[in-house]
């Protein structure tokens, strides 16, 4: 434990170095770039396994360091090794490794292959950094970098306008959630004085923190805002389906298995901060998202979009699990979902690849014969997602959530919503499989579809095996996963499977899943024999409702009409203010100054200057007049003197009298 914690930082650093090196490589060094990324993620995977091994025997270890300080306080960072982080690190590294390998085949013909692996490695580095972070600040930093990598990868084919727009939308929408996260982080820092999760009793998650942090529902909810954005919960779910514009391996890695689950991981990580009130909100948001997204998935026709809405829905289940059942329940579904959803996405990628970039399920059909390996693995994934009992991981993890909801003290409504979601999930997945793999090929492309190369199918097989096996680690009979996260040990007890608490819920969900599969199979199994142009059977039955669902309940349109339009209008108003009002004010001051100057000039010209001229003219005239006196005639001088003398004499005499 002590030795592995010293090297824990290597887990994210290895792919980061690969990304840095990949960024500097010229475009033609394709193999080197891919080799670096895959080598680095292999190192991360091995280290994660070693770390996981270490956590089996002991609890939690941390390693903190000072990042910078100001005055007396310092900002610390660090990494933590505990079961929660270790299991996540192993999952992320393993799924990343498999998807990196798969990408070798999927992206083989792309001219920006080198850049693709650079971005993938950057993503893996940020994601693994987030997993081992022991500081909310470091977590946030990695969280933002994950968002950046996601932006770069969604917009990887930026020549497609839809891809560029989707990348922008994803970044901005998740940033709205991050705004809450940031504010929550500031608040938490102001209250707790530290961002470290665990710091020998002083961390913000530890009850013995200095003074005892008063866990506040507001802080918890603000942090949850970040999770809502990243994990595509209502009302910020709109970016995730659009993110499917990215290459399919990206959708599998980032927008299904890992990054979108980071929001769930965040809540699991800061679980001690989550007050009962906050957990209520988490549960409700999760429940609404689960049903809302599942219902939209029923009416979609793009193979990846169906999976995307399914991801949103499943993330809702994870949130419900966290809210009602605790860390272990939510994290177990996160783990199983990561494997089977990665499997489904990669399978979808294989289908798209085989059908020459066709994504519309109405134009496929009959692929089971042409893509046998993909079909078999996809079927496993579909059954895991739908929750087919006993042999598929999704069944166990979903059942744990439903069981927790059933015993939740808050309300029984989320439980019923969860059941409804389970039915819808089985329904839309069966619909998809019928449309894609069963029946007859609808188009020439589907007719000539080909199986993918082994570099793509081998990861599929591995993931299919995992999608089955992981479930056995968390059954009620042997709850190893839950015990591992809680730091206890689990015994095998078959009777727990059969007790009166578990069994009714299990049977109910099984019945609903069976109903969904059978009904959907009955509708679409027959429909798949008909031409592609024909309307969906549900559309025929309920045209208005179907259209509304197909348009995703008009949420995008609603946001466009309100938030986007208001922001733009306000921005234009500010622009107008700047140009017209403030600019006008400046111009007015200018004109005033100029007017004053002109007035000055006129006053100067007419009053000051003119007056001066008149004055000087007068002086000159007077001088001229006076100068006439001095004309050189002595007689006149004498006359004047005489007159003056007389005048003076009279004046003096008058004065004396």
């Amino acid at each position, binding site marked *: 434990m002590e030795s592995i914690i010293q090297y824990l930082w290597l887990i994210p650093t290895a792919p980061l170095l690969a990304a840095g090196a990949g960024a500097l490589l010229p475009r033609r060094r394709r193999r080197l770039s891919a080799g670096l990324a895959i080598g680095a993620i292999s190192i991360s995977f091995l280290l994660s396994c070693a770390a996981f091994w270490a956590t089996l025997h002991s609890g939690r270890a941390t390693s903190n360091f000072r990042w910078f*300080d*100001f005055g007396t306080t310092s900002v610390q960072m660090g990494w933590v090794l505990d079961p929660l982080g270790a299991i996540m690190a192993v999952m992320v590294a393993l799924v990343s490794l498999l998807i990196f390998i798969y990408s070798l085949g999927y992206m083989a013909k792309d001219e920006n292959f080198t850049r693709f692996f650079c971005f993938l490695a950057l993503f893996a580095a940020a994601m693994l950094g987030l997993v081992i972070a022991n500081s909310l600040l470091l977590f946030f930093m990695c969280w933002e970098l994950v968002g*950046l990598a996601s932006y770069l990868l969604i*917009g990887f084919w930026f020549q497609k*306008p839809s891809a560029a*727009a989707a990348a922008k939308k994803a970044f901005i929408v998740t940033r709205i959630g991050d705004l809450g996260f940031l504010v929550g982080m*500031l608040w938490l820092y102001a209250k707790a004085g530290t961002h470290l999760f665990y710091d020998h009793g002083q961390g913000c998650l530890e009850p013995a923190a200095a003074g005892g942090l008063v866990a506040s529902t507001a802080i918890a909810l603000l942090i949850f805002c970040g999770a809502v954005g990243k994990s595509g919960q209502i009302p910020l779910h709109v970016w995730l389906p659009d993110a499917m514009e990215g290459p399919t391996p990206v959708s599998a890695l980032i927008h299904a298995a890992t990054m979108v689950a980071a929001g769930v991981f965040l809540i699991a990580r800061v679980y001690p901060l989550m007050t009962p009130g906050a957990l209520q909100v988490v549960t409700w948001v999760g429940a609404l998202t689960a049903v809302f997204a599942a219902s939209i998935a029923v009416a979609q026709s793009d193979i990846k979009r169906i999976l995307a809405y399914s991801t949103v829905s499943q993330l809702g289940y994870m949130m419900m699990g966290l809210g009602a059942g605790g860390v272990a329940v939510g994290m177990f579904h996160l783990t199983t979902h990561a494997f089977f959803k990665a499997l489904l996405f990669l399978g979808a990628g294989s289908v798209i690849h085989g059908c020459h970039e066709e994504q519309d399920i109405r134009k496929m059909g009959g692929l089971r014969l042409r893509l046998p390996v993909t079909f078999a693995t996809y079927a496993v994934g579909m059954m895991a997602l739908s929750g087919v009992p006993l042999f598929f991981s999704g069944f166990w993890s979903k059942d744990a959530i439903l069981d927790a909801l059933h015993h939740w003290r808050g309300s029984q409504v989320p439980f019923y919503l969860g059941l409804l979601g389970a039915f819808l999930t089985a329904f839309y997945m069966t619909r998809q499989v019928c449309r894609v793999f069963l029946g007859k090929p609808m188009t020439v492309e589907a007719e000539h579809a080909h199986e993918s190369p082994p570099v793509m199918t081998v990861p599929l097989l591995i993931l299919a095996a995992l999608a089955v096996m992981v479930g056995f680690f968390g059954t009620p009979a042997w709850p190893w996963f839950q015990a591992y996260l809680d730091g206890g040990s689990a015994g095998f007890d078959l009777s727990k499977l059969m007790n009166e608490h578990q069994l009714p819920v299990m049977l109910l969900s099984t019945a609903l899943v069976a109903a969904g599969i059978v009904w959907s199979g009955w509708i679409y199994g027959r429909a798949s024999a008909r031409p592609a142009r024909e309307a969906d059977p549900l559309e025929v039955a309920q045209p208005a409702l179907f259209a509304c669902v197909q348009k995703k309940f008009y949420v995008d349109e609603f946001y466009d009409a309100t938030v986007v339009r208001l*922001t733009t209008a306000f921005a234009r108003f500010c622009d107008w203010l*700047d140009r017209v009002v403030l600019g006008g004010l400046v111009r007015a001051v200018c004109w005033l100054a100029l007017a004053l100057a002109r007035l000055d000039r006129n006053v100067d010209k007419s009053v000051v200057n003119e007056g001066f001229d008149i004055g000087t003219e007068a002086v000159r005239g007077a001088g001229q007049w006076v100068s006439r006196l001095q004309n050189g005639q002595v007689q006149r001088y004498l006359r004047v003197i005489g007159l003056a003398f007389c005048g003076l004499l009279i004046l003096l005499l008058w004065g004396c009298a």
Partner: protein
Amino acid sequence: MLAWTIYISFLGAALLMFLPGENPRPAKVAALLAALAGLACAAKGAIECHLHAGAGALTDVANANWIPELGIRYHLAADGISLVLVLLTGIAAVAGVLFSWNVENRSREFFALYLALIGGVYGVFLSVDLFLLFVFYEVAIIPKYFLIVIWGSTRREYGAMKLALYSFVGSAMVLVGLIAAYVMAGARTFDLAALAKVHFAPAFQNWAFIVVFVGFAILAGLWPFHTWAPTGHVAAPTAASMLLAGVVMKLGAYGALRVAMTLFPVGLHTWQNTIAVLAVVGIVYGALVALVQQDFKFVIGYSSVSHMGFVLLGLMTLTQIGLSGAVLQMFSHGIIAGLLFAVVGRMVYDRTHTRDLAVLQPKNLNQVLPFAAVTFVVGGAASMGLPGFSGFIAELQVLVGAWQTFPVFAVMAAVGILAGVAYTLRVLLKAFFAEGQVEAREPLHCPRISLPERAGALLLLGTTLLIGLCPQLLLDFITPSLNSPLMQPLWKAGTR
């Protein structure tokens, strides 16, 4: 050593004036050498000061009688805050020369004025005699005007005149305040440290503070006195807009902190909330206006207003971390804005001769100028405050500080960051990645990105990344200075 930053710049300017011939190459080389020498002096001086002073107090650089009758001295000194800004000036100066390598028209005069501007800026950051500071402040305005009016583009006479008038109105206000302080103190000195010890009457402080603060803050883009900034930036040639956003706006913020806030702490306390409101309005408003601009450079111009709002908000928090964030943001914005202006002005505009986003959109610049596109992606990431770049750590500190003083403003400033993401991504897509209208591509033949441009971009990118990862490098300068005797009145007023 530090004083040589000023002398080298002015000597270089004078030398360039007497350089014979019209060949631009010697002028460029001489300017680059002068800028590099200035940067080297700044770095060496910073290291020396850091090693010897340590405590963050003002360290004398030069001190001589100038006008003894009025008690005016030629007194240069530096503390951590001024050292950070001197370093910023050095880096921005070098980058600016590198991005002006294509100036062929009257290049001798161009670089002479450029160096004179740099010299003035160094002078302001190093002066502690307020009269001397004021002189350098004025010296910096004149070359700015000519740089814009002779080598500028869009509406250059208008922009240059607006900028010059705004600057002079500001400096007139500053001068009034300084003379009033000189008279009221009655100590026959303009020395900052001496004046800071004087306890001015509260009533006097209340008006003197706002006059001096706004006088300086006009140049820092304080809303609603910011409108010179976008038009000035747009009109200016690349190097001038880099300096304008990079260092000249910092002159204002530096003066506001160093003079107004230090001398009149009681007045500061009176006006704290009002100015914080203006700063927050500037953050959100600048970002929103940037969101709807059609001119590429206007977007960056308004983003400067928004980012400088963080500096002013940080100053108004009156907390250690807020002020430290403000100083860090001055540095960070100087680097990042310089980089973005370089991409817009030098890499894009000088090649395509347009900055209209609608015209740039179909040109598919990411294929034509991949280096410019990558630089703008990374620079944009830095500008929107992504972790790993200096902007993140600076804005985070400001927000933490603001949360302690006025939590609501912190939230609103965070909304400003969100708007910052929106306008950055919008302009990124429009200018480089052709959102929509892919068919309308037209082939564009233009020279490749040259070596000096690459060097300048790497210099600026490396700096923001370095500070983003190791903010301690600058905080070692800033933090002790915030606790120096000079700043004590500020904290006393803040805690009252």
